[in-house]
């Protein structure tokens, strides 16, 4: 489980200032200075970079230019900064929802459902009841929050008092709510009369949130989201209930022994988590869509999980994560129009980021072996340098194996499979070298043979550039294999002498 050591560390730090507010502000400053926090930032940044690297390889393999794509992505995000903030608004709230539940040791994977229920309730109040301007907006927000709260309380109570696992129940209730809202806005009572789409009527103007800075996307909802970050941070770290929730989350039995009502806190945590998810849906409806239509969110609840993961379940981390994914989403449409890369690439990047952030030990593993490897090369250059050369060869091979099949993706299946194998084998060789595994020599020889196979395949399918590249790569591979074999033998002899 990803627990943020930053929070536990900050508990012991002395807090200056008399009032709770100033000590809370102090703690935020301390958090940025703490070593744990900086290490987490470092891990997250490395994970994102690895994910972007893998995404770049996928782009090369599918025939897109990663440099073009990434620059379009960045430029798109900068040019449409109001869209970035608009996209980040629901992400931030949904991310807070998942993070808050996680603080109590619960995984609210069905934020999507609570978001739908909240936004449906908001829409109902928004178009069915006429109220004065200020009251109407507040009423809509309140109803959205309450609807999300109730829909989150159901799995919360089931988890606390019946032991039903929240991952399963929230997920199932989320799917149930998608079908329920679909019915409500198509055949059910909230369908816009005479419309062929599954859609509700538009909410009254009095219920909408005003736009900010004259943008056509960004609304007042963004300020609500930022305010929620502050409130959730304060609630989690500076209130008794927040403390109890964290205690239950880190050790349920210990919390019970200390006299904390774990069950009540669990139910409440999922309820509040649902409320935040409901608010995420509410501000989207009031700020941008102004009506509910079937499946409008397209996975915002799921995105909330990714934001919380990226932010390590920390409110300020969620803030950063939401801005990052918001930028990816806003840049994605620009990337599609200007670089011709489908916007689904953004979803691929998102998935990769989550996968790499999910494995914090990968970065630890990389840095630990990296230091070992570097010091080994320094200490024994005779064995180290051929290994380093062959390591570089493997990197090159992993990329070339994919690049070379680019033109044949849609025509030649055998070349595609072969190129894929060469790349995978090269990755394995890289790992062997990195860990200084003895199998690196035979593995290097194996890729050499694969390149020879590729050469033959190129000959059979009369693919000129494949033949030339394969011949060169096979030649280099052969030289490196011989070099490695010789150094490894001398290394083994050396070890035997030491043993004798």
């Amino acid at each position, binding site marked *: 489980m990803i627990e943020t050591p930053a929070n536990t560390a900050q508990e012991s730090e002395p807090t200056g200032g008399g009032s709770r507010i100033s000590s809370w502000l102090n703690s935020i400053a301390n958090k940025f200075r703490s070593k744990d926090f900086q290490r987490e930032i470092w891990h997250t940044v490395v994970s994102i970079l690895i994910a972007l690297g893998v995404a770049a390889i996928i782009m090369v393999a599918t025939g897109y230019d990663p440099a073009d794509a990434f620059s379009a992505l960045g430029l798109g995000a900068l040019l449409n900064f109001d869209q970035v903030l608009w996209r980040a608004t629901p992400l931030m709230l949904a991310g807070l929802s998942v993070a808050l539940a996680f603080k109590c040791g619960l995984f609210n*994977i069905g934020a999507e459902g609570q978001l739908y229920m909240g936004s449906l309730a908001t829409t109902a109040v928004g178009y069915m009841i006429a109220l004065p301007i200020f009251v109407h907006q507040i009423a809509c927000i309140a109803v959205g929050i309450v609807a999300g709260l109730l829909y989150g309380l159901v799995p919360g109570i089931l988890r606390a008092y019946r032991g039903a696992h929240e991952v399963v129940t929230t997920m199932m209730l989320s799917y149930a709510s998608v*079908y329920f809202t679909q019915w409500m806005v198509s055949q059910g009572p909230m369908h816009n009369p005479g419309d062929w789409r599954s859609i509700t009527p538009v909410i009254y103007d009095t219920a909408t949130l005003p736009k900010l800075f004259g943008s056509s996307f960004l609304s007042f909802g963004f300020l609500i989201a930022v305010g929620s970050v502050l409130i959730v941070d304060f609630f989690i770290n500076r209130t008794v209930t927040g403390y109890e929730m964290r205690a239950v989350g880190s050790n349920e039995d210990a919390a019970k022994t200390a006299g904390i009502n774990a069950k009540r806190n669990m139910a409440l945590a999922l309820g509040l988590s649902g409320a935040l998810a409901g608010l995420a849906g509410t501000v989207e409806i009031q700020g941008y869509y102004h009506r509910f239509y079937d499946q409008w969110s397209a996975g915002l609840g799921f995105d909330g999980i990714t934001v919380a993961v990226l932010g390590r379940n920390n409110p300020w981390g969620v803030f950063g994560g939401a801005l990052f994914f918001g930028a990816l989403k806003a840049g994605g449409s620009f990337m599609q129009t200007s670089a011709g890369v489908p916007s689904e690439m953004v979803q691929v990047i998102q*998935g990769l980021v989550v*996968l790499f952030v*999910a494995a914090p030990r990968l970065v630890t593993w990389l840095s630990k072996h990296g230091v070992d490897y570097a010091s080994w090369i320094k200490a024994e250059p005779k064995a180290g340098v051929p290994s380093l050369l062959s390591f570089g060869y493997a990197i090159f091979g992993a990329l070339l194996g994919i690049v070379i099949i680019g033109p044949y993706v849609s025509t030649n299946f055998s070349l595609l499979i072969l190129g894929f194998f060469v790349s995978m084998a090269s990755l394995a060789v890289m790992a062997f070298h990195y860990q200084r595994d003895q199998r690196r020599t035979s593995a290097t020889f194996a890729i050499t043979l694969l390149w020879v196979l590729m050469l033959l395949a190129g000959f059979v399918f009369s693919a000129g550039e494949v033949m030339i590249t394969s011949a060169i790569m096979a030649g280099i591979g052969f030289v490196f294999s011989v070099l490695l074999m010789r150094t490894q033998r001398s290394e083994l002899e050396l070890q035997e002498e030491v043993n004798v």
Partner: protein
Amino acid sequence: MQADIFSLALIGWLIKTTIQSATPLVLAALGGMYSEKSGIVNIGLEGMMLIGAFSAVAATYFSENPWLGLIVAVVAGGALAAVHAVICVKLKGNHIVSGTGVILFAAGFTTLMLDVIWAQRGVSDEVTRLPQVIIPGIAGIPILGDVFGSLEPIVYMMFFAVIISWYVMYKTPFGLRVRASGEDPSALDTAGVNVETIRFIAVIISGCLSGLAGAYLSIGFGSRFGKAMTAGRGFIALAALIFGGWTPIGSFLAGTFFGFLDALQGYISLTIPELLPYNNFIKMLPFILVVIALAGIGRARPPKAVGTPYEKEKPA
């Protein structure tokens, strides 16, 4: 047009559709069972099914041989599961986060590749389907002929997989080890078995079965790949797994029941079209039932060590 509710042909059609809708659910649920029995939560079934469905169509498109497509689907599902396994087993990452990543990646990647290979955004070109298994001589028999006259081969594989899984899980040393690594990994470790290897294999099996389930959707029942074509079936399979109490036979029965609910919608639209607007409530049933099952009876008990990474004790 209102058909007779109890006509034999219609009942045969209902049974056949039930089996067909149940096939991907049961296969994926069986896959989930291997993974969860070994202690690794796999909510990425949906993503593995998607990758399987896509690779089946892509490989069939290039090689024009649906059987090769079937194999590639199984391999692709297994490969994506291997990523999940590396993160959960080797790197001790969070299972649910990793599963979410798998789903997101698969959803994005398959849609991206649709654009790359067929330059289309919604659906792929049509490819050759797997040939139907036709049992000669029973076509004339009522019900039996309607149901088993001509079915997809993966349906029979599904029945086979249920029996094999039951045998493997309860009658072989490997099954015992999988169950032990989900219940009490330290005991298994003490017995000299590598917990990580067992979990790794179990997760990969789960991916292979999910890939097969995906292939059924794309080249078994249908003949093309569509964006997000699994439509939550991975999660219904997860529900079937839980509803079936984490056992092969239970998963089969629950999967068949959910398949029946699916078929029922078609049946209702043929027989009582007035009820058609309420179809969504039938769609909601599997999800609601699972919540009730988990909350009410408490009989559905997951493997004890599920979701917790196993850390081998350091030698003193």
